[in-house]
């Protein structure tokens, strides 16, 4: 057996996750390796949601009764925790949305519609998730702007020369990039990309859905202008996304969704909008979800983002070495763990990922198969689909061994 080298004890930590006790497909212990899709929830997060509904359920920012006070306090505390996690200067730079997709759409509608003009370039990359492609296609169509792609090389790295050429061409209006690919695990050179963009006076949106849950992210250090991520990929509940926007940009942005909570005064023909960040949070938000996210941030904070990254690198290193020993396996993306998160996309011989996932499921192993909402990247890699194992804080090397065992069983079933 290989000893865990991480700073936290993964076996103790697993006790915090009720779902890891369950059995699937009969009697198989659950080996959950689909963390890039969504993560499991610790008991403390589940309990904080229950606590809100059981003890202080009320609408926020409104009534003067005690429950409303308590609910508002808990909701705003969560905003402060999220701000601290990514080192935002002000809590009002944090806007809660439904998910990371809505966060990006908010920027596309509220900022993009007012700043992108005909003939402008919106620059994204070939590694993007559909959530960072489709909103820009919609905006580009509406404004007659161009959607331009930074290519990816055969090792899964961005082609920085593409980026430099696009910047030199002039009319770029926004750069929108994933900090970590949800397929290849590639961690992009974000500082370099942002400093180049800013040198040319272009703002940068970072899709941090895969990075914030897994590594230290500092918006002041990177100096990004927009940053989007999702609660449910970082131990929190579904239905909550986060958008960070630099305050000076936010102050200039018109609202996204009109309605209650985002107003100061409403008259028959006009409305004076509320202060930041409420101006961008129209309607009753997912209060329980936001409170749950706050508890998830506490949990991550307590472990330490750097230690989480160390643990995932350790598991990923072990998994990549083990996978390399299996015949006929192709691993996509960077080999260098400094530039890769805990996401492993691969194919094995002529076994289609869906067939592999079906076989693995019988051994209790949950992996993802398909295009991972990144069809542009799939076309670039010239594959219809890949299998993907993605790790988180509770995964162990023993689970990696079970995963490899199931892979070998699949080889047998397919007579390879």
């Amino acid at each position: 057996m290989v000893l865990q080298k991480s700073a936290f004890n993964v076996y103790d930590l697993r006790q915090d996750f009720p779902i890891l006790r369950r059995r699937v497909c009969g009697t198989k212990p659950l080996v959950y390796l689909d963390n890039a899709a969504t993560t499991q929830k610790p008991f403390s997060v589940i309990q904080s949601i229950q606590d809100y509904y059981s003890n202080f359920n009320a609408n926020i920012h409104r009534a003067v009764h005690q429950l409303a006070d308590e609910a508002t306090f808990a909701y705003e505390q969560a905003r402060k925790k999220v701000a601290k996690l990514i080192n935002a200067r002000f809590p009002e730079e944090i806007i809660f949305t439904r998910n990371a997709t809505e966060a990006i759409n908010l920027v596309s509608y509220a900022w993009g519609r007012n700043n992108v003009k005909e003939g402008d370039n919106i620059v994204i990359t070939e590694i993007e998730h559909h959530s960072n492609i489709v909103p820009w296609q919609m905006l580009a169509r509406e404004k007659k702007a161009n959607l331009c792609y930074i290519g990816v090389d055969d090792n899964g790295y961005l082609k920085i020369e593409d980026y430099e050429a696009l910047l030199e061409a002039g009319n770029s209006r926004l750069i929108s990039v994933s900090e970590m690919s949800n397929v290849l695990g590639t961690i992009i050179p974000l500082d370099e990309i942002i400093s180049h963009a800013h040198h040319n006076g272009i703002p940068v949106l970072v899709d941090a859905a895969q990075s914030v849950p897994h590594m230290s992210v500092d918006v002041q250090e990177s100096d990004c202008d927009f940053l989007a991520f999702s609660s449910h990929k970082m131990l929190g509940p579904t239905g909550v996304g986060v958008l960070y926007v630099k305050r000076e940009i936010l102050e200039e942005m018109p609202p996204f969704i009109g309605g209650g909570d985002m107003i100061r005064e409403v008259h028959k023909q006009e409305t004076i909008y509320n202060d930041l960040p409420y101006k961008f949070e129209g309607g009753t938000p997912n209060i329980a979800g936001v409170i749950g996210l706050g508890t998830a941030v506490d949990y991550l904070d307590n472990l330490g983002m750097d230690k989480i990254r160390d643990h995932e690198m350790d598991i990923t290193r072990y998994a990549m070495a083990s996978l390399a020993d299996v015949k006929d396996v192709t691993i996509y993306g960077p080999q260098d763990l400094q530039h890769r998160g805990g996401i492993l996309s691969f194919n094995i011989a002529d076994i289609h990922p869906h067939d592999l996932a079906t076989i693995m499921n019988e051994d209790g192993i949950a992996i993802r198969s398909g295009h991972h909402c990144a069809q542009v990247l799939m076309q670039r890699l010239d594959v219809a689909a890949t299998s993907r194992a993605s790790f988180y804080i509770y995964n162990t090397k023993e689970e990696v061994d079970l995963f490899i065992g199931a892979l070998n069983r699949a080889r047998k079933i397919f007579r390879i």
Partner: protein
Amino acid sequence: MSDDIYREIILDHYRNPRNKGKLLEADVSIHDSNPLCGDEIDIHLKVEEDKIKDIKFEGRGCAISQASASMLTEMVLDKPLNLVRDLAKQDILENIGLTNLGPARIKCALLSLKVLKMGMVKYYADRDPDAAKNFQNDPTVY
């Protein structure tokens, strides 16, 4: 279990698909994909005297979707169009010997039948709109 799903005959049709390729001068060609997993099937048909005179398929995807498509082409080649109209989900699952597929995988097995029925709608659309209706939104497929 997988040993039952991935029987020799499924793997054989997956690795050595029958009637795979394009069809010159097809009367109708139709394409569809499964958005969940990206499996793709194209079917090309040549019809003569209300019979499927020739059929070819192209596609990529899992063993179940591709083997099912291959077996479907064998099943309907030289058969009257009425037979295609009457083909139902259960016929396909029995034909490929997979009657226990879960909800996520059953769509893989039925993709080719869905495409074939779409092809029939397209074929009849100009020729016999009433007949086309018989194939539209066929509940037996979904």
